[in-house]
């Protein structure tokens, strides 16, 4: 069974992000890049499906500039078999839909039985690409999955999808798209052997032209990035606990008027 995992490389949340000279973009120097955490759950789940079945092919796909190779290399070190790198300056301003269109073209070339994405990429926090990919392919899709089992003959997948107030369990015929929620699994760390082995694995470079995307204009564009408006300075309420609590409750009631 072939499984495709879509991974996005994003700034580590702990690194500081600054707006660059171009107010539409962040300063990219000095940033530590990581695989978006939800995408690690996706890679881990694909590897587990393969291991459980005793065979399979896990292909990691990422769209982005040269630096993205490093993220693909990490996925290969975790255990993915191959990688596809969609690397084209023409796609630099891709929105979620254009990203999904590029990924859909890769899916058509690879024809996997299952695509696993992350719930959302933690840089743009859109949470859209997985569902958009499914729509473009005409496949069913389940987002925010917490559990998953592919049946013995790889015809359907049963998933538990997190919704308000509970979990909805669905059967989806394959091929299908899933998006991973935290809680699905604990991603493994690459072993030394995995890291060494990853160096020999294939990363295929793909250009926009190879994907026959036609019009590559994004539908949604960033006009500006802005710093957060500063929050008014806070107030530490001093004194004995009893008095401090009394004052806090009064302030929430009378000054902030939130209770």
């Amino acid at each position: 069974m072939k499984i495709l995992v879509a991974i996005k490389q994003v700034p580590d949340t702990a690194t500081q992000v600054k707006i660059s000279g171009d107010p539409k973009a962040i300063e990219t120097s000095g940033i530590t890049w990581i695989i978006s955490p939800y995408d690690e759950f996706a890679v881990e789940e694909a590897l587990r499906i393969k291991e459980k079945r005793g065979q399979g092919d896990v292909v990691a796909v990422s769209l982005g500039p040269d630096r993205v190779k490093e993220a693909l290399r990490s996925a290969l070190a975790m255990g993915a078999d191959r990688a596809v790198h969609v690397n084209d300056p023409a796609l630099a301003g891709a929105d979620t839909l254009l990203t999904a269109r590029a990924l859909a073209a890769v899916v058509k070339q690879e024809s996997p039985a299952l695509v696993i994405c992350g719930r959302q990429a933690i840089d743009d926090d859109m949470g859209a690409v997985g569902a958009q990919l499914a729509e473009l392919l005409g496949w069913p899709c389940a987002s925010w999955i917490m559990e998953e089992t592919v049946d013995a003959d790889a015809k359907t997948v049963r998933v538990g999808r997190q919704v308000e107030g509970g979990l909805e369990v669905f059967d989806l015929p394959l091929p299908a798209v899933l998006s991973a929620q935290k809680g699905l699994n604990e991603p493994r760390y690459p072993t030394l052997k995995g890291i060494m082995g990853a160096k020999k694995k294939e990363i295929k470079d793909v250009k926009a032209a190879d994907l026959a995307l036609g019009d590559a204009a994004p539908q949604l564009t960033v006009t500006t990035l802005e710093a957060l408006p500063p929050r008014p300075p806070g107030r530490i309420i001093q004194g004995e606990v009893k008095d401090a609590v009394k004052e806090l409750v009064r302030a929430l009631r009378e000054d902030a008027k939130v209770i």
Partner: protein
Amino acid sequence: MAGALWCVVEDDRKGMPKKVMAEALGEAARLGGPVEAVWLTDKADDAGLQQLGEWGATKVWLLQHEGLAPYRGEVWAPVVADLAAKETPKAILAPVTSRQREFMARLAARLGVGLAADSVALALEGDRLVATRPVYAGKLLSKVTWAKQPWLATLRPNVFRPAEVQAGRSAQVERPPVTLPAAQMKLVERREEVSTGLPELTEAEIVLSGGRGMKGPENYVILEELGGVVGAAVGASRAAVDAGWRPHRFQIGQTGRTISPKLYMGFGVSGAIQHLAGMRTSKVIVAVNKDPEAPIFKIADYGIVADLFEVVPEMTTEFKRLLEK
């Protein structure tokens, strides 16, 4: 009608629209309307239709069919896309919920238009719409705009001012014929969570959050007690969730839920950037922590530097006294 602002209805699956709809409808009215609701459901209460009218919808497109429940994106997207192709709305808005987030993404792909997910502000600039969205763990705000209509956006709950209720006002109800594509997904079961009796985390106006400082799962009862008094949901930090003290659905932050309540109160939460990502758009933030250097105090409106085990019971008593008055 052509050029209308549509709001996709999030309901309680029992025939009533949820309270977040007042926010979407209110925002659509502020953007100049005309405001219309689109409701996909297997059952709609008359009271629910009335409610949408009182929240400002002039028209409700009621797409009622048993095949529309449970929600499946593959079924919903073509139904709304077909109607949108006929009616040419200017914008389609929906509150952020687990299903609307997925549905709106699918719909955007089907219509070939942009989607601004989890927006915290919308504004018309000339003849284009500009959405503001938190990005990079909420460290920056991104302003985005669309190449063409309809403009699709999902709205973060508790951020947009709800519509004033206009009692007695009702919406015109349109019931277009509904043709469903064959569904591929089959619902096996729905596992309901054991109800805590407290509001849902993402919908609550007040959220109490317990971090590693809670010391163990058994201590969350004191937060639940306080929650019961003030009508708050009780969430947790990832440290508490990873320790197994609380189920994942209660996690607040980048890899948990994003919340934006009127009042957030953190107890024994240090305020790591990933936690802040999930709650920094809260209106008022209160922090209770033993450590005066805890980063959460940097964004807190009110702070108490003390042992939470002394503060929480005191707060419960004090709020009880206040609210009984």
